[in-house]
């Protein structure tokens, strides 16, 4: 088949691929590609290139572009190739343009005509190729050009065409919903298509439509449920089976749709309970795809109107996921738990240990997911532990996108659930210190406001205590190097406002600190502005208090520097400060009142205090003020512009062929032209059309006025309508964070390695130990224990581990009494007296619970029948066995037929594929399909042929390019 007739490319191309395969560095690869680009540039412009050759050049261009280089010089040739009548070349051309061009590329206009023609072709393969391009390249302006044909193709006799037409229409809907709004009913019709492929494809647009407007599709609930039932009952052709599951991809899509339709709708949900329950029961939880369907069922159950029976089976499935050895399933389990927790919060408590395991897992993906779960289950009772953990985690990551997300979550949780303002300020300080440049500036203002306003209670002493503790902490922090700008702004503001308020620090001390800040961050104008304003406040407070102001020499030089600053804002602030220094106490109190940042300032928007001045000026003969709206000459510009815009947007592009010139021409056309156009009239339409096409295909960049005009308009339209191209949302990592990360990295390593060591080496011996620690964490996370206990537990988390000598550790497993002694070290949580609601009950239960459970663990340690340990150890042992069993099986089934092609057996991907899951440790995919095994027989011959061919071409594995082959052989 594919590779039998050789690779079908010239020696030259094969050499290129070979040399790139051999390239040792990216620089070398780039050099080779740049050379190739030069060659192609030269070759491709030669006259009379044979078409076959041209096709290869196009494929080489694709290759160059795939490697990340610019091949735009050849785009036009790819476009030209789409015009070819030979389907072979046309397909290559189409492939190349879909890979080269984006939907807003200028060249698309040159393909539209070809697409229109091809959509009408008798050959369904040509139509399919054209529809592929339609899906990728047709944009909002060109939709009208192909829309009628695509709609017509929805009824094509070939199912492949109908399917692609549905997808194309879906794409149109995504691009410009308004353009196809009237055609939406077609999707409903196609749902009843007798080809399952078309029906499956129709689910994609329907899912989108239902997401936008659920209510319009409530009538389809029964249909979807019955389709799902039929699919699950294997009514679809056998060819849709995948790993013994009946059409799982269609099932998943349907479950997604049902989840949308049943959300918050009891009546609709009732229609789907039976089938969803059936599917959950039938799911084969040993295969990946079975678990994918199972997971989708859980998502569906958690979205629709709750049903206790289904919730129960969903909880069971989650338990299975979480207990699995596969990280993938654990991940899904955590995700599913996060979904279900909204409906039944108590479910989390069953899995607390599993969740904590995931939280401490070395796999970052799993960790992140677990933090997401914690974020979802945060309450005022566990906010401290969770936010604490989140910040610890945040400090150690350097992916700015992730960091931003976690930082903003910390802020959100802290704002929502903060148990005390003290804690809130401390938490905010930590967040700002480590991710200050990533959080929303609004958060900084919230923090300043909170410090200024206090708790809202009329308790002034608490407020001033809060402020002085804030000042104190900031004075401590401010000496640290490289703080984020936002945080410095907060610090400067607080120091200025409250630095001297409690009289603990002298004005010269605070001003000295502020000057240090301004000096250390001399490139940051905003910080400097905050600093000088803070100085201004402190000096005026001093003046108001009647003390003598002595300006430190460094402050003096700082002020002088700003007096000459390029920034007018800084200059103004400096001059204001100078002015204030010369004022007396009375005036200073008036302009800079103490602690007045929260007081409202009345603003006279009409500037009535100037009325007298205005009156005076008018009397002296000044021109009266005319409001902008009443001025006449000014309006022209703006209205002119809007008019112009309107004109541009109202010009729609036309894609129909030009109409034949009419004999009657407008009067201003000269008689000569008129006669020539008259001559044209008798010409039959087909030839005219062909001529047009020829012109377009031979010289696409032809500069006839028509196309030029079209292009110009397109530009205008594009600027207005063009979609913004993809732009990275991630801001660059702040410099300030880098040293922290470097410092943090080894720490993280040490922690993770020690924990993994603990788990892997003597996991069984330490089981009790670890779970004691985890129990505590679990209790603080999941139970409603008192706050004071939580803080203790989070602080002393690592204590037992380090304190207990190794000898004692080994004792632990055997000796129950010594262990309880260990346990007694952990502080007994005092019952929470403040929480009088449900948490009071649970907290008392919780405070006993861990110990009880632990006792159970210890007593029964020998026979390991307690839930937690038995799960871990029991599931560990048999799984390993079964894995091995499957491994050997696989080696036999995959390896034997492949022995024939000497030395190349492992090069085949599927045998590698059979190996990967084994290495991954999940047994799910090791079952190679019987069909695949059948394939292996004849494939041995093919592999041999491939091998021979490759050797013939000189790209042998034994040659000088081991890099290209080593891994496949290994």
């Amino acid at each position: 088949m594919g590779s039998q007739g050789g690779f079908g490319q010239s020696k030259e191309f094969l050499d290129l691929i070979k040399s790139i395969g051999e390239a040792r560095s990216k620089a070398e690869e780039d050099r080779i590609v740049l050379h190739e680009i030069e060659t192609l540039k030269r070759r491709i412009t030669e006259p009379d290139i044979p078409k076959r050759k041209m096709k290869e050049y196009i494929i080489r261009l694709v290759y160059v572009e795939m490697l990340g280089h610019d091949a735009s010089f050849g785009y036009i040739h790819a476009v030209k190739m789409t015009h070819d009548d030979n389907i072979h070349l046309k397909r290559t051309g189409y492939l190349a343009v879909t890979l080269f061009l984006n939907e807003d590329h200028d060249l698309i206009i040159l393909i539209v005509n070809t697409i229109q023609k091809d959509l009408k072709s008798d050959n369904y393969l040509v139509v399919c190729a054209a529809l592929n391009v339609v899906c990728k390249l047709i944009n909002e302006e060109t939709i009208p050009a192909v829309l009628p044909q695509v709609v017509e193709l929805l009824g094509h006799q070939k199912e492949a065409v109908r399917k692609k037409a549905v997808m194309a229409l879906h794409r149109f809907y995504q691009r410009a919903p308004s353009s196809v709004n009237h055609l939406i009913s077609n999707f409903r019709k196609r749902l009843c298509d007798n080809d399952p492929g078309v029906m499956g494809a129709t689910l994609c647009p329907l899912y989108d439509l239902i997401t936008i407007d659920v209510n319009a599709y409530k009538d389809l609930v029964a249909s979807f449920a019955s389709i799902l039932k039929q699919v699950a009952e294997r009514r679809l052709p056998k060819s849709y089976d995948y790993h013994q599951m009946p059409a799982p991809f269609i099932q998943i899509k349907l479950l997604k749709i049902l989840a949308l339709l049943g959300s918050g709708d009891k009546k609709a949900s009732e229609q789907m309970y039976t089938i969803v329950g059936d599917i959950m029961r039938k799911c084969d939880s040993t295969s990946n795809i079975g678990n994918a369907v199972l997971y989708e069922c859980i998502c569906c159950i958690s979205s629709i109107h709750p049903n206790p029976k289904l919730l129960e089976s969903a909880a069971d499935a989650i338990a299975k996921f979480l207990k699995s050895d596969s990280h993938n399933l654990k991940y899904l389990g955590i995700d599913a738990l996060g979904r279900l927790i909204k409906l039944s919060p108590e479910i989390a408590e069953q899995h607390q240990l599993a969740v904590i395991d995931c939280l401490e897992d070395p796999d970052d993906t799993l960790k992140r997911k677990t933090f997401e779960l914690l974020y979802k289950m945060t309450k005022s009772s566990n906010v401290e532990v969770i936010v604490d953990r989140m910040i610890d985690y945040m400090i150690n990551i350097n992916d700015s996108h992730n960091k931003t997300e976690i930082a903003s979550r910390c802020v959100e949780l802290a704002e929502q659930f903060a148990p005390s303002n003290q804690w809130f300020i401390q938490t905010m300080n930590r967040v700002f210190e480590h991710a200050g440049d990533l959080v929303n500036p609004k958060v900084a203002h919230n923090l300043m406001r909170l410090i200024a306003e206090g708790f809202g209670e009329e308790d002034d002493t608490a407020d001033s205590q809060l402020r002085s503790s804030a000042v104190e902490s900031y004075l401590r922090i401010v000496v640290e190097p490289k703080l984020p700008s936002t945080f410095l702004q907060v610090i400067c503001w607080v120091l200025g406002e409250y630095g001297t308020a409690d009289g603990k620090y002298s004005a010269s001390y605070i001003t000295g600190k502020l000057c240090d800040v301004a000096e250390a961050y001399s490139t940051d104008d905003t910080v400097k502005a905050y600093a000088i304003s803070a100085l201004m406040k402190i000096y005026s407070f001093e003046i108001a208090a009647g003390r003598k102001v002595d300006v430190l020499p460094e402050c003096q030089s700082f002020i002088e520097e700003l007096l000459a600053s390029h920034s007018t804002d800084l200059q103004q602030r400096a001059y204001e400060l100078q002015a204030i220094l010369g004022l007396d106490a009375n005036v200073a109190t008036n302009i800079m009142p103490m602690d007045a940042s929260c007081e409202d300032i009345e603003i006279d928007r009409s500037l009535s205090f100037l009325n007298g001045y205005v009156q005076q000026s008018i009397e002296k003969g000044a021109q009266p003020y005319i409001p902008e709206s009443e001025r006449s000459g000014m309006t022209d510009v703006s209205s002119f512009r809007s008019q112009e815009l309107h004109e541009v947007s109202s010009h729609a592009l036309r894609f129909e062929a030009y109409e034949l010139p009419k004999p009657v021409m407008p009067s201003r056309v000269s008689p000569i032209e008129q006669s020539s156009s008259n001559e044209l009239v008798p010409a039959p339409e087909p030839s005219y059309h062909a001529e047009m096409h020829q012109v377009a295909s031979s010289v696409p960049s032809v500069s006839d006025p028509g196309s030029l005009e079209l292009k110009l308009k397109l530009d205008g339209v594009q600027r207005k309508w063009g979609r913004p191209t993809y732009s990275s949302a991630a801001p660059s990592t702040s410099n300030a964070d880098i040293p922290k990360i470097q410092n943090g990295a080894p720490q993280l390593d040490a922690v993770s390695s020690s924990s993994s060591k603990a788990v892997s080496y003597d996991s069984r011996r330490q089981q009790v130990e670890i779970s004691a620690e985890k129990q505590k964490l679990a209790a603080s996370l999941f139970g409603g224990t008192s706050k004071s206990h939580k803080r203790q537990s989070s602080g002393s988390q690592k204590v037992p581990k380090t304190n207990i000598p190794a000898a004692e550790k080994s004792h632990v497993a055997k000796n129950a009494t010594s262990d309880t002694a260990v346990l007694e070290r952990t502080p007994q949580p005092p019952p929470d007296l403040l929480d009088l609601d449900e948490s009071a009950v649970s907290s008392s239960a919780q405070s006993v619970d861990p110990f009880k459970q632990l006792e159970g663990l210890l007593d029964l340690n020998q026979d390991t029948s307690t839930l937690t340990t038995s799960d871990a150890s029991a599931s560990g042992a048999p799984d390993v066995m079964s894995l091995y069993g499957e491994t050997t099986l696989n080696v036999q089934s995959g390896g034997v037929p492949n022995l024939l092609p000497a030395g190349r057996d492992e090069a085949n991907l599927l045998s590698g594929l059979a190996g990967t899951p084994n290495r991954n440790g999940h047994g799910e995919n090791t079952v190679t399909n019987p069909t695949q095994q059948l394939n292996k027989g004849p494939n041995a011959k093919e592999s041999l042929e491939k091998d021979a061919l490759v050797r013939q071409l000189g790209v042998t594995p034994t040659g000088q390019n081991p890099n290209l082959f080593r891994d496949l052989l290994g």
Partner: protein
Amino acid sequence: MIHFVLLISRQGKVRLTKWYSPYPQKERTKVIRELSGLILPRGPKLCNFVEWRGFKVVYRRYASLYFCMCINQDDNELEILEIIHHYVEILDRYFGSVCELDLIFNFHKAYYILDELLIAGELQESSKKTVARHIAAQDSLVETAKEQASSLSNIIAEATK
């Protein structure tokens, strides 16, 4: 929705890229570099998913080749993992014991197959047989087209002699 499909070798060499969402060329290079840095060093026992720029990238390793697909936050990762496998199975059936070398030299064919499987970032066909049949039809048509073209050129050559 799938935003893009990447095939990267273990050494970080690009074997195939298909972008369903608009990414300018510069951005593409950056994305590939970022993701190879993220995915290639991951151990075998870890999740087959990584979170990246608010998206999720699902990857799977076959011999020395990594198949990666980028999806939205709310998509089903395990399903995507199986779509990757589905694609590999189809490739395997088409090439006969597919190996990385097949994809290196026949990357355009891998593209054609991908186009039959995914369209506009959605799974369009979940039946292996249907995809295989369609690809075979295209191949045979290409063959006949080639023959026709050569016979036609022969006739022309004869006539113009």
